[in-house]
């Protein structure tokens, strides 16, 4: 039973660039949420995708956008990268939207220089 998988695991980008992170949900799950975890902090909710639509968004600027594909996989895009965007980006999947039980992937470490 495949868990939540994310790619890439690590990447380095320059300020102002754009980045795309990818996520495949756990088998049987159709909902994907994205979280940002800064060093030494707990994860913060970015947004959630269900049925290929953004269902809920946290307190993040429009530079953060996403997409969900028909196979339930998802992408997180961040434009105009800032140094403060350096963090671990976590994808979490769940059986359906509004369900509290979520399972995280191992994350993508983004460093902005």
């Amino acid at each position, binding site marked *: 039973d495949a868990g*939540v998988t*994310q790619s890439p695991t690590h990447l380095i980008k320059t300020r102002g660039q754009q980045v795309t992170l990818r996520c495949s949900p756990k088998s049987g799950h159709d909902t994907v*949420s994205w979280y940002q975890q800064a060093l*030494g*902090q*707990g*994860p*913060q*909710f970015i947004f*959630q995708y269900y049925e290929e639509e953004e*269902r*809920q968004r*946290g*307190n993040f600027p429009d530079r953060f956008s996403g997409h969900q594909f028909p196979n339930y996989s998802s992408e997180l895009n961040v434009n105009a990268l800032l140094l403060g965007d350096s963090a*671990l980006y*976590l994808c979490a999947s769940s059986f359906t*939207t*509004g369900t*509290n*039980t*979520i*399972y*995280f*992937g*191992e*994350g993508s470490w983004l460093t902005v220089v």
Partner: protein
Amino acid sequence: QQQVKQSPQSLIVQKGGISIINCAYENTAFDYFPWYQQFPGKGPALLIAIRPDVSEKKEGRFTISFNKSAKQFSLHIMDSQPGDSATYFCAASREGDNDMRFGAGTRLTVKP
């Protein structure tokens, strides 16, 4: 933004001892309280969770105690082992709300 306060920030326990991590929340609408365990370089893994209709939930060496009136909940790790050394996060959310709020984390070190 933070609606869940976690303490202590770090904790050192001897092998075989009891580790206790505390969390307090503000939003009385929260009705789901999970604990996550995170090892360095890994994503958080769901450890145990509780809903406010019970005051305690036990799974193996891990127990959640919940005090609804005080808006507090805690994680107890019995017979702590060096392999339990990790960062632990409490979290809270409410049914239908996909924005789960996390505490800042507790770094647990269990000394052999």
